[in-house]
């Protein structure tokens, strides 16, 4: 069942389950893709730069880690909803609305995963030897070239860890999503939200258990995959 591609799972999964699974993967993937540049930028800023308000920025980034997810969902609703002060502006300029849409779920996932990704990348950048960057500069490399050819490749293990953590956190995201974009099948109802609906409905314990098994399988699968990728990357960085 694990190895079967999604289109063949139609026979194994109900349409409803398949919808939730596809949506979960889509939301988590987009969340990670959007997070990555911010994660690298913020991680690098915190690891390598000294500036006024650095500790404030650091605290802000970590806030989603300590705030109850429902609070984050509420704040997103106020700020990024169609009537929210940023959301309104976004809608006017780009025609994009986050409310009650899968994009809102991506945003909620990205916000709660941000601290995990930044932490992993920051630690990894801090462990890159500054002496190597100095050596590269004496060889005529500009700051950008040093970053792209030395810092970034040597940070790759941390980036992989960050991607994995953010992806896992996004798959499991529940509180912020349900309070921000509600629980709409096919639009914002990811696996955790679908499972919540089944648990609320009497007589659907079996359906909830099936979703539980699906959850465990994707979680295990992504863990194994990330383990394999990070081992490859680590070996590459150590020079094999």
């Amino acid at each position: 069942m694990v190895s079967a591609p999604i289109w063949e799972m139609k026979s194994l999964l109900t349409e409803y389950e398949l919808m939730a699974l596809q949506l979960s993967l889509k939301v988590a993937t987009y969340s990670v893709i959007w997070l990555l540049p911010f994660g690298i930028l913020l991680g690098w800023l915190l690891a390598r730069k000294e500036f006024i308000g650095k500790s404030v920025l650091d605290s802000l980034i970590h806030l989603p880690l300590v705030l109850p997810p429902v609070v984050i969902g509420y704040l997103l609703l106020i700020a990024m909803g169609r009537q929210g002060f940023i959301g309104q502006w976004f809608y006017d300029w780009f025609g994009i609305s986050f409310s009650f849409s899968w994009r809102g779920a991506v945003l909620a996932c990205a916000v709660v995963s941000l601290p995990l990704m930044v932490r992993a990348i920051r630690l990894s950048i801090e462990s890159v030897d500054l002496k190597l960057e100095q050596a590269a500069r004496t060889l005529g490399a500009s700051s950008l070239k040093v970053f792209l050819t030395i810092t970034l490749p040597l940070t790759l293990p941390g980036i992989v860890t960050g991607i994995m953590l953010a992806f896992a956190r996004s798959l499991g995201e529940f509180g912020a999503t349900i309070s921000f974009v509600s629980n709409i099948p096919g639009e914002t109802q990811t696996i955790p939200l679908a499972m919540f609906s089944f648990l609320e409905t009497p007589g659907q314990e079996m359906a909830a258990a099936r979703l539980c098994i699906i959850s465990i399988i994707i979680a295990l699968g992504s863990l194994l995959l990330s383990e394999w990728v990070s081992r490859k990357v680590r070996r590459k960085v150590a020079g094999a």
Partner: protein
Amino acid sequence: MTNPQVEVEFYKQMESAELAVNFTVPAQGITAIFGRSGAGKTTIINAISGLLVPDRGKININGMTLYDSQDKRNVAVEKRNVGYVFQESRLFPHFSVQRNLNYGVKKPDNLYFEEIVGLLDLKELLNRYPRDLSGGEKQRVAIGRALLSKPDILLMDEPLASLDLPRKREVMPFLEKLAQRICIPILYVSHSLNEILRLADHLVVIDKGRVVACGGIEDVWSSQVMRPWQSFHEQSSLFSAQIAKHNLEYGLTQLKFREGLTFWVQQISAEPGSNVRLQIRANDVSISLEKYDNTSIRNILPVRIVAIEHQHDGADKKSVNLKLDMKGGCYLWATITRWALDELKLCEGMDVYAQIKGVSVSQKDVALTGYQSQ
């Protein structure tokens, strides 16, 4: 038009000490920066490379100003075109040797690449990764990487210090070859007298953040400044000379200091006409009042005593150092006993003969120098 020079003059307040250096050396050959650990040697080349910004001063190489606090000029590290060989090789772990070597290459130049790879014997290593290299191999790659960026000056920060003795012996011949073949100025930081003797043409001595001596190595070597580093047995004189001819039958080589002043030493493997630097230990020099013809000693030179120094390295180590003028600005040191001094009634201004056995100077006391110091 003045000769190309490396002019360094700056002040820097460090955490524990202050550094105020000022020296000018010719932009040619190897200049050793010598001093105790913590004297500020590395800080000097860091300032030249731009990795460290001084508080004030001026740094000028071949007429190009890299730093000038008055003009508020501070060329970025990557634009200074310096080659830097660090104490720890600092190879990029995720690149192969080949990619490490090519990292600083601006315009591909296969001929030059082949030359450097040949000079440092890197051919076998090109496809390996830094973690599979020995310490000596890493350092050779690091030197190659710096040279391939075609720098205007090569800075070397104790490149042998992190290596054990066998690795040092392995890398040293490459450095000697480098000294003869590379025509850019090299600043070589070291606290090893042995390395300096073999490699350097000029010497800058740093003590407590100040330059205490600067000049040609022969001059600085014989000056008072070097005395604390030369122990009782190590007192010696340095000369630059040219190989005049070989005597294959006896296994000897004749060196010419200048017209009319020659010297026989054990055979040296180098072509006649090569420039060499020669170390003569003061313990190997003896004094006689007359010139004897029936003696085994091959080198007898007329000299004049210009200074007498008494040395006391403890009660059981009393000796006298004589500074002998060989004329033409060359000085030879001789260590003798006080007994001999009293019996021969030696005094300053006396004309005597210095005798040096031909066998006492061998290949290890002679360094080939590509650059003829004036």
